[in-house]
């Protein structure tokens, strides 16, 4: 029976919980994938494993899209505010995109909160098109 990416990810997380990560473990995992001709699943397995690990440890991944990179103080304040409102630990990553004009957009899991200038102008354009 061929295993799915999620099954591999679950197995990997379970193994790493009980055993320390080592080069041998990684090599053995990769050779198993190659033997089963499923090495193309590696990217997806790691993504799911990361999700599982974060979920189990109560960590939420948040990506902040900003027009200009936030300084350390702003970043800390944003992290604290998000942790307070989500009541979870935050793993914050920021991505700079000057086309956003200003404001901020946050991606929390599957949800995308858009409070950027570009987003608001886009909504205004849609209203005019109607």
């Amino acid at each position: 029976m061929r295993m799915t990416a999620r099954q591999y990810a679950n197995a990997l997380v379970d193994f790493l919980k009980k055993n320390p990560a080592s080069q041998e473990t990684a090599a053995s995992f990769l050779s198993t994938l190659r033997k089963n001709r499923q090495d193309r699943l590696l990217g997806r397995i790691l993504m799911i494993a990361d999700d599982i690990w974060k979920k189990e440890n109560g960590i939420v991944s948040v990506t902040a899209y900003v027009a200009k990179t936030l300084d350390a103080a702003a970043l800390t304040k944003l992290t604290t505010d998000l942790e307070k409102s989500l009541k979870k630990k935050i793993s914050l990553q920021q991505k700079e995109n000057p086309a956003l004009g200003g404001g901020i957009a946050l991606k929390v899991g599957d949800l995308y909160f858009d409070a950027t200038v570009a987003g608001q102008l886009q909504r205004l354009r849609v209203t005019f098109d109607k």
Partner: protein
Amino acid sequence: MSSDTISLFKKHIQDFRAKSTTEHVGTVLEVGDGIARISGLKEAKSSEVLEFPNGTFGWALNLEEDTIGAVILGETEGIHEGDTVKSTGRILSVPVSEKIIGRVVNALGQPIDGKGAIPATEFYPVEKVAPGVITRKSVSRPMQTGIRAIDAMIPIGRGQRELIIGDRQTGKTAIAIDTILNQKGQDLICIYVAIGQKASKVAKIVSELEKHGAMEYTTVVLAGASDPAPLQFLAPYSGCAIGEYFVDKGKDVLVIYDDLSKQAWAYRQISLLLKRPPGREAYPGDIFYLHSRLLERAVCLNEQHGGGSLTALPIIETQSGDVSAYIPTNVISITDGQIYLESDLFFKGIRPAVNVGLSVSRVGSAAQIKAMKKVAGKMRLDLAQYRELAVFAQFGTDLDADTKKQLDRGARITEVLKQPQYEPTPVEQQVSILYAAVNGYLDEIPVADMMDFQRAFFEHLKNAQAKLMTELREKKDFTPEIEPELKKVIGDFKAYFLKK
């Protein structure tokens, strides 16, 4: 720009407040061959429309454990791995309005004829559950095709599903187009769905429809050979959704799917790319359901539900006359009958090349006017006897008078059923010529002159016997007043023709 528009703009800008929005998003993992695999979007529904960053829409077809398999409804250029995909919360639907009549649109209902935008009043879902038993009534009103062989022997009713099946180049599309041409003034809206066809062929069809004034009541939905497979798969459902808009308004609609073999190929391609398990002829397991759920939407609604109807004429192309292949047998079993076209008949000059032996209409005479019922029953018998005798007559020359008479009658009826393209015959003219043929009035006309006779006879009926024709069309039967007069008209015209 008018002052109203400017003041509206000003108001919008004044009222504008900075607000944030929340959307469900996913990430493109891989994209290729018109398919995108997306992670995230855990809330997405089956058949939901997704929006890619380049403005292209996708259609969520496979909801898997961690990913979504979506078909891309448009250009894949500009979609990259890592792009954000938004869920729209909408099920795929097409914009519809009265203004769509006379236009050529793509599978998404967008105009492609260069005549400007079509203002939409509503959106109709492309996938919809077929109307239930309570809303339906049995098919009872005829949908005249204008083709004598079909209207007489394989009658089609409003709300019926009649398959047109045959090899390539046997005249399948010609029957469909003639049927559209014959609907002028018949209070029937036509939708022609072209799937996987050459753009040049569709351009020719549209120009013929325009030339004959048929675009006034016709919409063409085109997913051509150069369009992506998802659009070819989608086009029949879009055509049906446009039809349903008019049916809901109590109107009669005819939808022609030309052809469903190519839609099945497109669906097979999509399914294999989505890694669904292949079955017979590499089609996926739900290939039957693909066509049954489409054709089940053909309906004849009862009066409580508006009384509209949707007639479906699906077309299937066979390979080397093999009707027992997978897709042909599926669609034969779904529909209420089939019109079988044969290459041999076509090359013998019998056009339309309808094999009346293998063709059938399961709704039958319920969808025929009384006058047609009277002539068609006798004609079917005459033709059956003719075909049987013609086989034996090949082996010997000594034939008794009765046999010879039957052979002569059969040959003339066969000639009456031949018909040139783009010349549909009104039902009153059809019953007049068939009445003449089955009652022996044409026995003295040489077979070689039958085509000339018919053409002249139709001209005579149209110009000199307009009153009789109107009466026949309205009464729909050979009343004691109409029948003697028709006999006289036929007799007089035959004498005139033979003298000439």
